[in-house]
């Protein structure tokens, strides 16, 4: 029996702080236009729900927030599978990953594929473990101290010196320049993400920011990657434009990290250029919001992930040529109140088929 592959993807909102979901969907559809895409949404107004383009979803479901835990997640996914049996889930938000890791065995028994990241490598790349990573593989990282109360935060600020960054364990960061700012940011991050909060030295140097998206094979190898320098930033430091670089030193640092962690699946490494070279400021365990840019220049990592999860032969990722660049472009999507009404009952199915089947690229899943 054969059927079209059904892939669930989260992180659908492309606001001023864009999430990766629609970029991942677009990339997958570039190679597999017939794939059925199920959106996993936390809000009625996630912008990706309203897209009729190739980054849109065929159906979407409201999900319990990650703070509800893995049992609530599994219960909801089981409900979804009764209507849309899922073959693959690609979680695209940092806060979701721990719940998915907790459910690894459940997914195996249900024959649902997810990126096979291990809890060990997930924890090793955590912001509060960057110092250990530095010691283990000799890459540069800014001075980083994890703190769980305000007194410890003040002490860390004093030790590191202002200005510095306070970061949430899973997400969020702010530059602070005074103890008063530190207190405000500390409380905000604790309220949003829980502890610890990470105090990280601001990198002194050119301040240029470099991001690398890639896909690890789980054995220490890199299946493909693309490195950019951010050339435009949003108010909160997200890449709004980037240009491909070809820096062997940066590439060497990336390969060292992936080899040490035996990373499996998508990742984003964030570096800042300091006085003595690139310093790793964090590693995200998912695709970044700009991952459809490399897909458009021959390095389609989300499609490779699908192949990897289905144990299919992988089309090698083309090296990204230095000088190719992207600039993000915002558009207004049209929706209707009836869509909000439908989704508020828990799910929505789009009547339109945004992706007519191209027989050259039908992706079939043999069961």
């Amino acid at each position: 029996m054969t059927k079209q592959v059904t892939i669930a993807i989260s992180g659908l909102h492309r606001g001023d702080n864009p999430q990766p979901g629609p970029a991942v969907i677009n990339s997958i559809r570039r190679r597999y236009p017939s794939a059925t895409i199920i959106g996993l949404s936390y809000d009625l107004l996630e912008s990706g729900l309203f897209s009729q383009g190739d980054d849109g979803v065929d159906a979407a479901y409201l999900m319990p927030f990650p703070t509800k835990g893995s049992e609530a997640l599994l219960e909801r996914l089981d409900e979804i599978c009764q209507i849309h049996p899922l073959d693959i889930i690609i979680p695209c938000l940092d806060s979701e990953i721990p719940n998915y890791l907790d459910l690894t065995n459940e997914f195996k028994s249900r024959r649902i594929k997810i990126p096979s990241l291990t809890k060990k490598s997930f924890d090793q790349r955590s912001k509060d473990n960057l110092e250990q990573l530095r010691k283990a593989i000799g890459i540069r990282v800014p001075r980083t101290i994890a703190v769980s109360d305000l007194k410890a935060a003040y002490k860390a600020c004093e030790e590191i010196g202002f200005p510095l960054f306070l970061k949430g364990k899973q997400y969020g960061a702010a530059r602070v320049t005074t103890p008063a700012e530190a207190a405000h940011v500390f409380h905000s991050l604790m309220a949003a993400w829980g502890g610890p909060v990470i105090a990280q030295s601001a990198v002194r140097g050119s301040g240029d920011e470099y991001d690398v998206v890639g896909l690890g094979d789980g054995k220490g190898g890199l299946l493909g990657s693309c490195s950019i320098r951010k050339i435009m930033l949003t108010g909160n430091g997200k890449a709004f434009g980037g240009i491909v670089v070809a820096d062997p030193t940066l590439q060497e640092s990336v390969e060292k990290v992936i080899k040490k962690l035996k990373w499996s699946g998508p990742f984003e490494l964030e570096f800042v250029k300091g006085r003595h070279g690139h310093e790793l400021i964090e590693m995200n365990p998912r695709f970044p919001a700009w991952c459809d840019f490399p897909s458009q220049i021959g390095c389609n990592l989300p499609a490779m992930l699908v192949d990897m999860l289905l144990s299919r032969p992988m089309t090698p990722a083309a090296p990204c040529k230095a000088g190719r660049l992207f600039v993000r472009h915002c558009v207004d999507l049209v929706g209707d109140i009836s869509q909000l009404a439908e989704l508020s009952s828990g799910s929505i199915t789009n009547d339109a088929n945004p992706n007519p089947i191209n027989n050259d690229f039908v992706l079939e899943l043999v069961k």
Partner: protein
Amino acid sequence: MSANRTRKNGVNGGNAVHLSNLKIVNGCLAFDVCSGKFHRISESAAFVISELKQQTPIAGIVSAYSQRYKISPAIAARDIELFLNDMSVTR
């Protein structure tokens, strides 16, 4: 001649431009493929960088530059020296 380049943190702050990494695009943009930085450059700057990339000795560049722009070798030599200082070019 202008490179429109801002130097930070001393001589090059660890960001020296290596000629092998520098691409001249359409004769008006210098792009460092390693750092991802790019700078608008004048036609004369593009000329000097192209000569440097071809390993032309400085004396040869001065000579060619003075002929091309019809200026004295002394002015050409000063112009090129100032430009190289500004670019912090590592050959």
